[in-house]
């Protein structure tokens, strides 16, 4: 999706002298390796997933099922509760990122770009560091930090006299997903921060100086000069975050296990997909329902991304310097 956004708008030069030129085979040849790999590893599996979603039965006697799998997933009581629960949880998981991670990232970027800040490089590296850690480590480390038995969280809270605030967050239905959301924010805030930081550095000094001459400084300068120039970047960040959140799976799986407990309160679409497709303990994997969940995930992401591109991203004003 990112490539689609970042593609330059066609500039019309190419068509100008097309008729006089010979067929340019080298373009096809240069594209071929990438296209082949992409087709084999991405396009074909995706197509096969769609196909599987329209069938049912075991591998040896597979039958065409039309839209039956989708009807079961969305409407049948046995599946629908799980599906809608996972969808609602995914939306909540994304909301945390939208409302906490992105403002936080912009704030951090703004602070980092303050002129004369000492050790800015150190902060930047420290905040970016968790992004580079493996999700297995993140899940494990946070499980330990928050452990009521040997975690540092209860000890640290006790040190400042707030022990009563401690809860076994990952084990309570009402907190588990939110806690995981914050862990994920902690892990990934580095990426939007670096993107916003780069966008802020790209703002020409003349613009800011002109603002200062007009008496716009400090917070007013941030909200009236920097932020409007940042909106396109924030838009891209939002859409990337949305896509990765709706395909997210690993953090919940490593921290909460395959049943995304307690009582499915941290079950997001990714974990539902894994459980359905590969099974869990006595539950056998079901490739057809799994493919149906995967297809639904793809359609949801596709719809939202298209909607965003058509209705929001196009309306954002880009300034040329």
């Amino acid at each position, binding site marked *: 999706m990112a490539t689609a956004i970042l593609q330059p708008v066609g500039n019309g030069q190419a068509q100008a002298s097309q008729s006089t030129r010979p067929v340019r085979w080298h373009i096809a040849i240069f594209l071929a390796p990438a296209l082949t790999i992409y087709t084999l590893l991405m396009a074909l599996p995706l197509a096969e997933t769609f196909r599987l979603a329209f069938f049912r039965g*075991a*591998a*040896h006697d597979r039958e065409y099922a039309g839209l039956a799998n989708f009807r079961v997933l969305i409407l049948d*009581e*046995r*599946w629908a509760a*799980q599906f809608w629960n996972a969808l609602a949880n995914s939306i909540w998981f994304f909301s945390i990122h939208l409302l906490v991670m992105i403002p936080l990232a912009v704030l951090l970027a703004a602070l980092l770009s303050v002129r004369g800040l000492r050790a800015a490089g150190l902060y930047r590296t420290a905040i970016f560091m968790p992004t580079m850690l493996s999700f297995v480590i993140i899940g494990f480390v946070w*499980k330990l930090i*928050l*452990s*009521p*038995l*040997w975690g540092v969280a*209860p000890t640290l809270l006790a040190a400042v006299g707030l022990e009563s605030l*401690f*809860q*076994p*967050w*990952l*084990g*309570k*239905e009402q907190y588990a997903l939110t806690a995981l959301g914050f862990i994920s924010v902690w892990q990934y805030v580095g990426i939007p921060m670096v993107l916003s930081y780069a966008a802020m550095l790209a703002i020409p000094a003349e613009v800011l100086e002109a603002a200062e001459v007009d008496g716009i400084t400090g917070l007013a300068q941030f909200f009236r000069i920097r932020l409007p120039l940042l909106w396109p970047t924030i838009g891209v960040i939002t859409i990337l975050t949305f896509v990765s959140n709706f395909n997210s799976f690993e953090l919940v799986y490593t921290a*909460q*296990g*395959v*049943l995304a*407990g*307690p*009582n*499915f309160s941290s079950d997001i679409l990714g974990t539902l997909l894994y459980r359905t497709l*590969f*099974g*869990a*303990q*006595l*539950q*056998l*994997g079901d490739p057809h329902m799994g493919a149906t969940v995967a297809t639904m995930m793809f359609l949801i992401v596709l719809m939202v991304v298209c909607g965003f591109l058509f209705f929001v991203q196009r309306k954002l004003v880009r300034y040329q310097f």
Partner: protein
Amino acid sequence: MSKHKLSLKILGLLTAGLSVTAGAAPVTLTIESWRNDDLAIWRDQIIPAFEKQHPDIKVRFAPTAPTEYNAALNSKLDAGTAGDLITCRPFDASLELYKSGRLAALNELKGMENFAPVAKAAWSTDDSKVTFCVPIASVIHGFIYNRDAFAKAGVSPPTTEGEFFDVLSKLKGKLRLVPLAMGTKDGWETASMGYQNIAPNYYKGEEGRRALLAGKAKLTDPQFVEPFRLLAKWKPYLATGFEAQTYPDSQNLFTLGRAAVYPAGSWEIASFNKQAKFPMGAFPPPVAKAGDKCFISDHPDLGLGLNTKSPHAAQAKVFLEWVASKEFAALYSNALPGFFSLNKAPVELRDPLAKEFLTWRSKCESTIRPTYQILSRGTPNLENEFWVVGAGVINGTLTPEAAAQRLQKGLSSWYKPAQ
């Protein structure tokens, strides 16, 4: 062109030559397993004993992580890269493999007569006509306790429900110890070590399980709800923050001596022996009233089957015959105390804790976990639901009655005899 043909011929000769040499060299068999904890035991004790007798066959034990085993095995089987011998999960996971032609029928295998029908049930078709894995071991549920803590608190192992809670409250009152080492975060312990551990005493083991299968009993019947009421009473005896306590947390809590009683499966014995610095004892799940007949969950857990695609089927069968022998039973049960051989031949155990578990087989009636045969075939999956509601009942977010209703509703939605 002729050059190509020539190279093809050379290639053909080479491969022919290779296959000839392969026939002469010892064959290597690979075992797929989820028991990565047992890697050293297979490598250093079990396999060498076999290789000594059969110098022409080499065996390699190649385990994956337990939670990934089913998914990994299925992918390997689909891709044709799975090992020659497949460690079998009990019931449906393996039955599905047999039905789709991944596992070979083993009725004719020499040594299969060493196993009782009950032992073979976990790896047989529903009509019990075909058996497709050699039964290896079962695990028994109960409670392991810290003898020192019991002595200090002046209590002895409970035999009835009343005594059980009495002991727990004494442990909590007198010692600064966590009485029960169990958490609800991972969920499965609340089913396997919680409900399925204590419940057979109330629904009368096989009798209750068969009634459930036949649709004559419901999970909302009192004998199935009562165990949930007892589980709900465990809450005050668990560690603070047990809602986020994981399975390894519970193990550590007990082996570090910070908890007195561990709701257990016998598979813990080997690792507890290594880690715990205090003497341990075990008691079976308490009965409702003194003198009641006792029932234990004696669950077939592990078998070994033959991959139909194995290029060394003949050698693999030689290995399987050995696995079905009395010699293997003795070797395995003593190398892995807590995994009890399913072989009819009695085995002399050396480990005292494992011996204690095994005595229950003669005192009490054995049954298997209620969800494993047939009842977890549909959606919602009954075993998964047991994990979820078990945790809910102990956490206090679900009443025992509501838990039973949720289970029964889910089961009746797809299992017809139960309606």
